[in-house]
């Protein structure tokens, strides 16, 4: 399928993919992040309860997808960088955290293959979601990522509404994750959900049997 004039180097297609579904949504007053919990290498699930929502700061989290090693490392580095800033300002801006992530993703884009979605709450602009795919920085009302996200593009396009309540956003995230996990072999396990608003971050885990059911189950 690849064009013969510019053949793709082989190592690009040999990377270890940790298929995933991640999603982050803004609501009036904060953000909700969600992820599945499966880390797979080929056909084997090496970790079925991995939490892919990583804290960068008190009210800023990031969702990891792509190569697990790359994503975790980026998150740790940015966490450290934000801690250094902590002493000067109370709350780092979500935009700053996202920019730090983007800088690393862009500078090392040839070596890294991770897509982080950065989301959080700050006093200046409230709830924000930033996508940092391949070194691009884009603020969006919501963002999805990972191999499982392809299957829910239609669903999120149709069902997302601006200014949902916190409850509706959480349901939206859990529904989206469930649908993606139902179709993507590389996503599965439990759903981790983190809600961030002015009062802080609240982590929740929705077990497999508590996930919503759709028509074919």
């Amino acid at each position, binding site marked *: 399928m690849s*064009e*013969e*004039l*510019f053949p793709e180097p082989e190592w690009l297609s040999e990377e270890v993919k940790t298929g995933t579904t991640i999603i982050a949504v803004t609501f009036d007053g904060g953000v909700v992040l969600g992820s599945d919990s499966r880390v797979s290498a080929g056909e084997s699930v090496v970790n079925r309860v991995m939490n892919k929502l990583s804290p960068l700061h008190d009210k800023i989290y990031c969702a990891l997808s792509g190569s697990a090693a790359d994503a975790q490392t980026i998150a740790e580095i940015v966490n450290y960088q934000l801690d250094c800033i902590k002493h000067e300002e109370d709350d780092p801006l979500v935009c700053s955290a996202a920019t730090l992530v983007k800088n690393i993703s862009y500078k090392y884009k040839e070596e890294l293959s991770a897509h982080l979605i950065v989301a959080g709450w700050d006093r200046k602009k409230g709830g924000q979601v930033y996508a940092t*795919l*391949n070194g*691009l920085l884009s603020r969006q*009302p*919501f963002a999805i990522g990972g191999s499982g996200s*392809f*299957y*829910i*593009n*239609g*669903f*999120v*396009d*149709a*069902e*997302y*509404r*601006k200014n949902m309540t916190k409850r509706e956003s959480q349901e939206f995230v859990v*529904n*989206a994750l469930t*649908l*993606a996990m*139902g*179709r993507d072999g590389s996503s599965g396990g439990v759903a981790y959900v983190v809600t961030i608003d002015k009062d802080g971050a609240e982590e929740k885990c929705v077990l497999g049997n508590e996930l919503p059911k*759709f*028509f*074919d189950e």
Partner: protein
Amino acid sequence: IVSTFNNYNDLYPDWTQREVSTGTTIMAVEFEGGVVIGADSRTTTGAYIANRVTDKLTPIHERIFCCRSGSAADTQAIADAVTYQLGFHSIELDEAPLVQTAASLFREMCYRYREELMAGIIVAGWDPRRGGQVYTVPVGGMMTRQPVSVGGSGSSYIYGYVDSNYRAGMSKEECLKFTAEALTLAMERDGSSGGVVRLAVISEQGVERQVILGNQLPKFSTV
């Protein structure tokens, strides 16, 4: 998957070397009394849109249609062959053929020549014995009956939407709306799908076809 604004290959038009494919979104839904089928209308050779008003809903018999995805040449050839075989069979039987028969003919061909072919087909129609039925014959040549089926490159994007919005026992109008919305969402996200939405309703009364033009497609909040 790398998102780029510029492609290396823009220096050389690659559509001259690419095969014509119906990168596509196709869909079929059963309802009480018949089926609703739908497809987008884009045929591409690489990045060039060879036909922006393609009709991918192909009649195989009076009340049996197929939705074609994959290689345009392969699917047209298979459909022609099956149309002939089914016509012959129907004359021998002296009655309307079963949808399952049509689907089996497709499966026979798609499985036998699976190495040479690139065809994903959804067979849908109405017969007096079992009413409205949808059979899917994806690449590789398996066949299975499903109440709702999607196919083509754009279908990946709407699995979530279809899983969450399909309900058994929808009326004809609800199925039409459901299909049009799902196809619109897929066309928004899949570069190989687009153009207009072609719909058809097949029931005991016959076939009703409609076209929804680009500016009349349903709108969603973020697009």
